[in-house]
């Protein structure tokens, strides 16, 4: 019985410290965004890592998602004789939900885990300590560029996902399902607003922050050697994905 309470107490303390540390790191990282000198090279490197290197996987998932959406919505809409709404369905789903969320999940899987592994390895091989003893703030040097990269690259990746998703949907809708191309594009343009795209892009800012913050946190506070590094990578992905989905719900309910 006592053991149970002790365990619960420890869990609560851990939860509170984790959240606290996370916000502290975030606060520091954000603080250092505004403090020169700027390590532009570092930021560009992280942008390349988060953005450019995620391009392939994002294009792949985006286009296939668009294609599947077109196929599925066609089946459903056909029953109502509303095949012309396949375009808007694909475009709106991509722009508002699937674009930002899928991009974020893919980037978490690809870049988030890699980030946690890299920082975790740096931690257990004392590279972070080394930085510190060289009078270099590891948060500014390691975490700030990653968060900046997440904030700037996720919206762009999301726009690309939206675009290839619509193209994929168009391809399936027009060439395979024989929807009139004019109708497909026309209806899409009718139904989708700039707001819909911006709404997804706004979400992706938050997702970019969440991915990089969680991965950085997990990596930065890795303990327990190689095993700890593996755990950090797993946690970065699991916690990142869960937080993306939860925050997606919250953001959706706030923005509507």
């Amino acid at each position: 019985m006592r053991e149970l309470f002790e365990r619960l107490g420890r869990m609560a303390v851990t939860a509170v410290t984790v959240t606290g540390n996370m916000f502290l790191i975030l606060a520091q990282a954000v603080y250092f965004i505004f403090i020169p000198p700027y390590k532009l090279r570092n930021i560009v490197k992280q942008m390349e890592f988060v953005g450019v290197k995620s391009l392939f996987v994002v294009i792949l998932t985006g286009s296939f998602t668009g294609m599947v959406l077109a196929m599925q919505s066609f089946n459903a809409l056909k029953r109502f004789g509303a095949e012309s709404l396949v375009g808007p369905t694909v475009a709106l789903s991509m722009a508002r939900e699937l674009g930002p969320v899928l991009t974020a999940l893919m980037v978490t899987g690809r870049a988030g885990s890699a980030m946690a592994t890299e920082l975790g390895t740096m931690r257990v091989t004392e590279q972070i300590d080394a930085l510190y003893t060289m009078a270099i703030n590891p948060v500014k040097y390691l975490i700030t560029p990653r968060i900046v990269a997440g904030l700037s690259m996720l919206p762009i990746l999301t726009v690309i996902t939206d675009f290839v998703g619509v193209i994929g949907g168009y391809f399936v809708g027009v060439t395979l399902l024989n929807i009139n191309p004019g109708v497909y594009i026309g209806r899409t343009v009718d139904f989708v607003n700039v707001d819909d795209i911006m709404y997804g892009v706004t979400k992706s800012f938050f997702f970019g922050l969440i991915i990089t913050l969680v991965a950085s946190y997990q990596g930065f506070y890795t303990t327990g050697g190689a095993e700890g590094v593996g755990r950090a990578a797993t946690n970065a992905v699991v916690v990142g994905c869960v937080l993306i989905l939860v925050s997606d719900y919250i953001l959706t309910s706030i923005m509507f």
Partner: protein
Amino acid sequence: MLKLSAEAKVGIFVFIGLILLVYMSLRVGGIKFGREEGYTLTVRLDNASGLDTNASVRVAGVEVGRVRKILLEDNKAKLVLRIRPEVKIGKDFTAVLRTSGMLGERYLELIPGSPNAPSLEEGGDITRVATYADMEKLINLLADVASDVKNVTASFSSVLGGNEGEATLKNIVKNLEEVTENVNAIIKENDKRFSTVMVNFEDFSASIKDASRNLNSLIVENKDNLKGGVENLKNASLKLEEAMDTLNKIAPKVEDTISSVDSIAKKIDRGEGTLGKLINDPTTHEILNKTLSGINNYIDRTERFRTFVSYRGEFLFDEQDTKNYLSLKVQPKADKYYLFEVVDDPRGRRKTETVTIGGATTSVTKTSQEFKLSLELAKRFEDLAIRGGVIESSGGFGIDYYMLKDRVKIAFEAFDFDFNKKRNPHLKIGTLVRLNKYFFVTAGYDDFISKDGFESAYLGVGFEFEDEDLKYLFTSAPSIKP
């Protein structure tokens, strides 16, 4: 292979992303840099449910702007619209909330009015608003209509279900039976007569031919005189137009009309209890009104379901009394209508009864003071309409011929066949001339082969309202309610 630096890759990547963003934004329409173009209009709706900000505003289905704001003002939805600068919205445009597509995106349609109405300026108000039956409303409406119909039938059954009513109904049915049973017999018996009629008719048409030949020569000889005649006719018709104008002006002054309706109603009230009740009962009006408007709202844009209510009084010269007709005409299609008519005949309803007086059996035609009912189905072929059913509480049929774009109607009807040949069928021939949309005059000869001295020439006036007009009447004429 060209090796790109990280900076260059990121730069290209960001560039592509921004281009796509701008492209998509421009494509889906109207990213506005700086001040938004166009001008603002407002419109107030009773209900803006389902409408979102940014919903499109269309004229003839073409987007001309967007709904920028939806506010609540005096319990009405006030919409602020942003209209493109090049689009002109007239003061008499009508705003209608509509739904597009299966998934029901709501938009605001502006239906143009007259082409030379002045345009609205910045900040202007679209004052005309209409509502269209949408699904939800339709369902409620149909429920209302159903209960209304129930009420109406209940009223009718209470009218017809009384002792009098029952008798009336029984008679109608009996008459119908008689008609069907003996229609064969009459045709057989009258076969010879029909052929003579046909021969006569042939002779008649031949003489018409002669007459027209004579007429031709007459016209040639009297060309000048004819010209003068035509001139006179022209003048006369101009005068007639003036007269009609006056009538038109009088028409909106419904009060007068109402009072005459009122007096008729009172008369009916005094004369007959049950039907008077039906006609004077305010709930009947309401129910009728609601039912009609309900049905019409439902049908609306498709083939319009038209309903007419008319009254006419015909003065029978030989009787020195007026025969009144109150009719409801329901016209689901242009070439088909149902007519329901209540007829107040001063000569009453005739019945031939066999009476035994002191051992001798004689048949006597008796009249009774009661309303007669008509229920007819009419079908129109070009200018000719054939109708049949119950006419004045007995089986019958009629033929109508329309002329001058329906302004003149020549009607013949035959009913109340007595197959025991104790009395002749009731035949009526007459003409109806419309003065304008609402008023008409009638003239003709009623019951002209009567054996009982009921034959009489008549002259009458009447009016007819369509349901839309009716709505106006009932809502603004409390005097009709007791």
